[in-house]
């Protein structure tokens, strides 16, 4: 563990500084007032109510629909009942339900001392309208949990979002890193996402039971999709290794083939006849609230890091990219390594497609459009040289996170999506520039 940390901070991962910097930057500009939710909000508000009202009275408790809202309402109801308050109503729902409850209370001519609710309800025109129409409500007070300052960016839920949003791209980027280290490129990964998502869902729908498919049935569908994607990757690899087709062209062809296959198989429509449990991989969070897709990504990165830094295969991949002729002369099976690298890229793209299909519980041939470009951007920003022979797996992870953080940060601050494209493009250009400078030995003029 320490070794990995040390490796992360060594000079090979210069981009880590940039990533940390971005995090600090976006934290500082997304600092805003936050509302405590759920039980925490309930405790805090109950304390305040008990403090402000020495004598117990009548109260209406309102929370939003959902887990947090329920916890909020239940928490306050229990606490205030214990203190002797009369609960006129405790509900979760939207503004219409809130409005109805308020009108009910006042139409029956009873009085209400307090509305304890989440911030959202206090701001609604409902309360204002009621005060205008009903003079009896002027005594009523509305209380919400006290807000506190915290950056939106640094909320735990947002950080998990960032990791979850980049998981698919980051998984594909592992394969792309290997390909680019061999001085190749794989443009087909975006289409392979669609192909694999469609093939997996199609197999489940047609062969292994559709909505009633068992775990085994789903596994078969997913395994088949990954194998098939690997097969297509292997084919591109063979074109590159045995026929000297430039990787750009080989994978460009495969990109169209895979996309076409996905459309053929699905008839252009999304396939959604899947069991509810199919979203376990993409939407579940079994490991202490960490999304399963993120756990999968972390495991794959550690495995890939060990593979590339500790094993012969890893050294061979670097050797092929550094100088294929020298590698061949020193006994590296160059062709087999190339085959293996493209096949892994295909399998990982297939896995990415399955994660995506699981996230949306459907397979669609439109998935993964332009993803190859984001994947390549992640690898390049992560410091892997496009001319081959150099690059680090964790660098790619950092690159992927830089892209995710920039996108998330810009979304949180409301930057227009056109501007976002410009910024991402410039980050990519800057990274390539850095790569060129590195190759020249950091001299600006030579």
């Amino acid at each position, binding site marked *: 563990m320490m070794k990995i940390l040390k490796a992360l901070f060594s000079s090979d991962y210069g981009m880590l500084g940039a990533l940390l910097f971005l995090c600090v930057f976006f934290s500082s500009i997304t600092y805003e007032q936050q509302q405590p939710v759920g039980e925490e909000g309930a405790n805090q508000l109950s304390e305040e109510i008990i403090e402000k009202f020495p004598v117990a009275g009548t109260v209406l408790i309102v929370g939003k629909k959902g887990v947090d809202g329920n916890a909020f309402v239940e928490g306050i109801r229990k606490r205030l009942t214990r203190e002797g308050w009369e609960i006129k109503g405790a509900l979760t729902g939207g503004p219409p339900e809130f409005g109805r409850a308020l009108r009910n209370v006042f139409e029956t001519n009873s009085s209400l001392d307090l509305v304890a609710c989440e911030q959202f309800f206090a701001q*609604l*025109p409902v309360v204002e309208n009621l005060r205008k129409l009903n003079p009896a409500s002027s005594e009523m007070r509305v209380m919400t949990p006290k807000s506190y300052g915290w950056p939106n960016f640094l909320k735990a839920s947002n950080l998990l979002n960032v990791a979850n949003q980049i998981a698919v791209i980051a998984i594909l980027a592992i394969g792309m890193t290997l390909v680019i280290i061999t001085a190749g490129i794989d443009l087909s990964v975006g289409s392979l996402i669609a192909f694999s998502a469609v093939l997996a869902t199609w197999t489940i729908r047609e062969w292994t039971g559709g909505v009633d498919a068992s775990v085994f049935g789903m596994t078969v569908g997913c395994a088949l999709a990954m194998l098939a994607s690997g097969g297509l990757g292997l084919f591109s690899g063979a074109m590159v290794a045995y026929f000297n087709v430039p990787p750009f062209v080989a994978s460009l062809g495969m990109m169209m083939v895979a996309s076409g296959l996905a459309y053929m198989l699905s008839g252009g429509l999304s396939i959604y006849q899947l069991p509810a449990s199919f979203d376990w991989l993409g939407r579940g969070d079994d490991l202490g609230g960490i999304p399963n897709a993120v756990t999968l990504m972390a495991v794959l990165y550690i495995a890939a890091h060990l593979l590339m830094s500790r094993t012969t295969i890893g050294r061979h991949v670097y050797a092929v990219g550094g100088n294929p002729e020298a590698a061949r002369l020193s006994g590296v099976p160059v062709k087999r390594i190339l085959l293996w690298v493209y096949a892994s890229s295909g399998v990982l793209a297939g896995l990415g497609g399955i994660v995506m299909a699981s996230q949306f519980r459907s397979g669609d041939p439109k998935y993964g459009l332009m993803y190859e470009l984001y994947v390549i951007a992640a690898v390049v920003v992560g410091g892997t040289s496009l001319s081959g022979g150099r690059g680090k797996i964790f660098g790619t992870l950092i690159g992927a996170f830089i892209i995710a953080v920039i996108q998330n940060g810009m979304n949180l601050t409301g930057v227009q*999506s056109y501007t976002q494209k410009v910024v991402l493009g410039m980050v990519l250009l800057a990274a390539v520039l850095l790569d060129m400078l590195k190759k020249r030995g950091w001299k600006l003029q030579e």
Partner: protein
Amino acid sequence: MKTRILFSVRTFFSLFILFLAGCGGGDEGAGMQSKEDSGSEKKGMIGVSVLTLGNPFFSVIAENITSEAAKHGYEVIVVDGDRDVQKQANQIDDFLTKGVSAIILNPCDRISIGAAVKKANAAGVPVFTCDLKCVAEGAEVVSHVGSDNLQGGKLAGDAMVDALGETGGKVLVIHFPQANSCQLRVQGFKEVINAHNRGREVGKIEVVAELDGGGVRDEGYKVAEDTMQAHPDLAGIFAINDPSALGARAALEKAGKQDQVKIVAFDGQPEGKQAIKEGKIFADPVQFPDQIGKKTVELIISYFSGEDVPSEVLIPTALYTQADGLNDPELE
């Protein structure tokens, strides 16, 4: 020496990213300030994710949502879903993180977006859709606002009957069957044509082909060209939107049949209206994206006021003909 250059380049790069992020964040900083200035005026935020800002139809919806919401004291964030359902799902996550009061969507996929809508449901944030629907099981949408496509299709049918007159003839339908809205348009169109043909011996209007034009110009061009090979005596074309109609028009011009074949399209985008004015398209049932945007905000405000809102509101379309085009001050 080498390390120093390395260090400086790295610093340069970090600063560069800072600079970019700074540019991006610039407007927002101003936005936040004005929010504080107006103090209690801002009642909350509404997050909007449109199908694509590349199509003026959706940018008009977004603009009208923004201006209408501002009247009621709500701030609006508009993001571009770019027809990418994963991107749109991420945008919904980000809206929830920001703590918006409501979300308005043009779903990029009517089923796949369900997962993200359910997340918003779980967080208790109301979701509204406009123009395009979300039909995923278990995903709750408070209300939908859209054009009345069936009525629009009927108007298109009337226009076609008008254009072909008593002689009738063969008609090509340039379809986009993946979109539910287009299916309704074609359904409405055919209802009128069938009613017209009933009890008629001569002057029947016959739909000879229904082909997928993808809703885009080049595909519209291809299907029109191919159909003219099979039916050289084609008399009319109904295209489900302006781009595919203009593609078909280009094919007609190439074949020299622009006077023989009348085109009825749909949408009424500026480009389409211009073509109607110039007589290139006979007529368009036009949609009113501005009203769609405004109506959606009205619904949100009545929802926030505690009223029950209808689950669907349809905005009728209106027929736009050359006479309208000649009087339209917005056209050249």
